[in-house]
């Protein structure tokens, strides 16, 4: 704060400030003319040099042995520091706490992992249902996921058939992506605490689907050619809802960011906060 002792420390009647001087402009003009002479006439440079030396000497005399000052009277200070907004609205996220570093609580990393795993099961189930209903094979979507390893000219029958190699590649891809997205949910959901299902179940899947829609042709051209976008979005939403529910049911942990560094570092510092508050 501005020291409230402002009025208690009496203001002086007058103050000393650096005195106005013409030497800086003379010196600057001299330097400019020295250079200007290169493109006009040597006499301009000579004049510039004279001004330069005069300006420098004048400047030295202005500050040596002591700087020249002028004394100015201090005007009566009538400034009153006050606000027209006495009422301060506070975010209602932390009742009883006047100031809070947001987020106050977060989900542990394990919550994101659990959510990702649960979502992966839901998504896989929906995808396999799609395969069964449209192509009579639960392996169709699994093989499509790794279709980059298939020849571009692979037939639908080939993709619908069981393929152990494809399954072994598809499982880690599916799990890894699900865990990453689940972890992201764990980080993001506390930021939108009011409507976790809306964010997790709708917003995020649609954004994710949009991103894939624009890039899938580069990542997996075969999948891009054969994908059914309504089913894809449906399985993404399924993932989002299940992962969002699982994450939001996990216990939250308090963040430490509003604690002093000594406490966060594990150093015993009793009374640290109390002393600060009492100041």
């Amino acid at each position, binding site marked *: 704060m*501005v020291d409230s002792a402002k009025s208690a420390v009496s203001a002086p009647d007058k103050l000393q400030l650096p005195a106005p001087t013409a030497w800086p402009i003379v*010196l600057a003009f001299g330097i400019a003319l020295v250079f200007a002479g290169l493109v006009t006439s040597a006499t301009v440079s000579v004049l510039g040099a004279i001004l330069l030396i005069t300006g420098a000497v004048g400047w030295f005399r*202005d*500050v040596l042995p002591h700087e020249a000052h*002028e004394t*100015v009277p201090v005007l009566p*200070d009538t400034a009153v520091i006050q606000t027209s907004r006495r009422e301060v609205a506070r975010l209602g996220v932390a009742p009883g706490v006047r100031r809070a570093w947001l987020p106050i609580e977060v989900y542990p990393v394990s919550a994101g992992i659990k959510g990702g795993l649960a979502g992966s099961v839901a998504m896989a189930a929906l995808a396999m249902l799609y395969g069964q209903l449209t192509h009579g094979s639960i392996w169709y979507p699994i093989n499509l996921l790794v279709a980059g390893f298939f020849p571009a000219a692979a037939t639908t029958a080939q993709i619908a058939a069981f393929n152990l190699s494809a399954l072994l590649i598809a499982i880690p891809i599916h799990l890894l992506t699900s865990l990453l997205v689940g972890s992201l949910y764990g980080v993001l959901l506390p930021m939108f605490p009011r409507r976790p299902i809306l964010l997790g179940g709708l917003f995020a899947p649609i954004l994710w689907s949009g991103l894939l829609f624009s890039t899938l042709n580069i990542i997996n051209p075969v999948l891009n050619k054969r994908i059914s976008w309504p089913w894809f979005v449906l399985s993404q939403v399924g993932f989002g809802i299940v992962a969002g529910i699982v994450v939001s049911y996990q216990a939250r942990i308090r963040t430490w960011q509003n604690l002093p560094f000594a406490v966060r570092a594990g150093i015993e510092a009793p009374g640290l906060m109390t002393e600060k508050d009492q*100041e």
Partner: protein
Amino acid sequence: MSTELIAWPRAPESSVPFVERLHGWVTTVDHKRLGLMYILYAMVFLLIGGIEALIMRIQLAVPHNNFVSPQVFNRLFTMHGTTMIFFVIMPLVFGFANYLVPLMIGARDMAFPRLNAFSFWLTAFGGILLYFSWLGANGLYGAGNAPDVGWFAYAPLTSRTFSVGHSTDYWTLSLLVSGFGSIGAAINIIATTLCLRSPGMTLGKMPLFAWLNLVMAGLVILAISPLSAAQIMLVIDRYLGGHFFDTQAGGSAVIWMHFFWVFGHPEVYVLVLPAFGIASEIIPVFSRKAIFGYPIMVAATVAIGFISMSVWAHHMFTVGMSSNANTFFVLSTMAIAVPTGIKIFNWLATMWGGKIEFKAPMLFCTAFLFQFLIAGLTGIMQGAAPFDWHLANSYFVIAHFHYVIVGGILFTFFAAFYYWFPKVTGRMYNETLAKLHFWLFFIGFHLTFDFMHIPGLLGMPRRIYTYEPGRGWETWNLIVTIGVVFQALGILVFIVNLLWSYFKGKTAGNDPWDAWTLEWSTSSPPPAYNFAVTPSVKSRRPLWDLKHPEDPDWRYE
């Protein structure tokens, strides 16, 4: 000379004879007056540079136009670029830093008041020398007058073979002179922020505007020095038979490019960091919230300062550097987007949940946020070398660059004009005119620079004097020119508003925005000594603490 005691006969300004007032301004070492002189000087050159742009746009509005000759067109784009960078935005940066930094940190003046005056006058004479070229450089028959080598003046265009007469010399010497001024101003800002902060104002409690200007000043010293060195080498080449940039005699034209861009890219951050500082002061006040993530904002600023020194050669992807060099500069260019992105997130987080008041300063800052984001995104696009190979030297680059300089920087400086106008003059500006200015300029900006990207993508090169019809460029160029008319009208309203408000505006009081930094604790306009008693502070928002003693910030910082 010993300390001189002079009475301070501060009669009302209007009752002092004009010559005496003029003398007072010419000999002043007061940081506030010098700041105002920087700003007024920049405004004059803004008008000149704007008129140059308008003439160029008229020339390009339709194909096969002959509004000006090709020779004049070359001079116009050279003078426009040089003027806007060196004699508009740079003086604006130094002007606002001069006026505000001492007030914000509770100091009575800059650390070196005489050096401050000297720096301003060097900058001023540099600009005058540049524009004297229109008259003075026409020394040889047919040699032309004003510089016409483009604002980055690549070799060998600048050699005596291709640039006879003195036009290029005026460009070199004027930038050399003003460059010395910039270095002096930067030294002053660094010394002031490091040494003159009021008691209690640790670096962690310094206003972000002061922080950003501190980093900016460091960059000025690092960036202007190689430019000045290159200018001296060019003078040696042109006058003393040197061959620094003469490829046929063992020199290197590419060396000039490196010298220029090792200045040129940090220069963008020299210009934009103070704009960030302005946004960091205005957005919290008009959102009624403290800035989100102050330590990260400072860290991002310092990171930008460091990384900005390692990205310069992304301007040179088409020169034919090695693949290692290309890769390095692509990655460093991508890296600088990270701290910049952090800042944008933090400004948005400051606004989030705030009680936002869309007064003119906040309108300009909000527009800045979105425009600078787009500018950054097109910058990242061009930061990828293969993409740049397609678009280098096209109008896409011009659109991106103006998105940064106008959409990013000029918008925040307009915000700053309105935000601090009451402090500087003691009067309020006219809000209706300010909003009219905003909308005219906003529409004009987007008409001009959104649509300028398209002819660039269609292959229209920069700096062409005219073009053939039938290439799909006509409509876009016409829209771009129409946008400039809106911008010019906006500027006109802005000037009218400033003049009218200065003479007829309502009295503002000391703290019309209910703000939190120290400059609002002194009278408007501030007295010569700024603060009768040096204030001591305990938090980043010292005035908040005074206004809310029951809940001061220092308990939580």
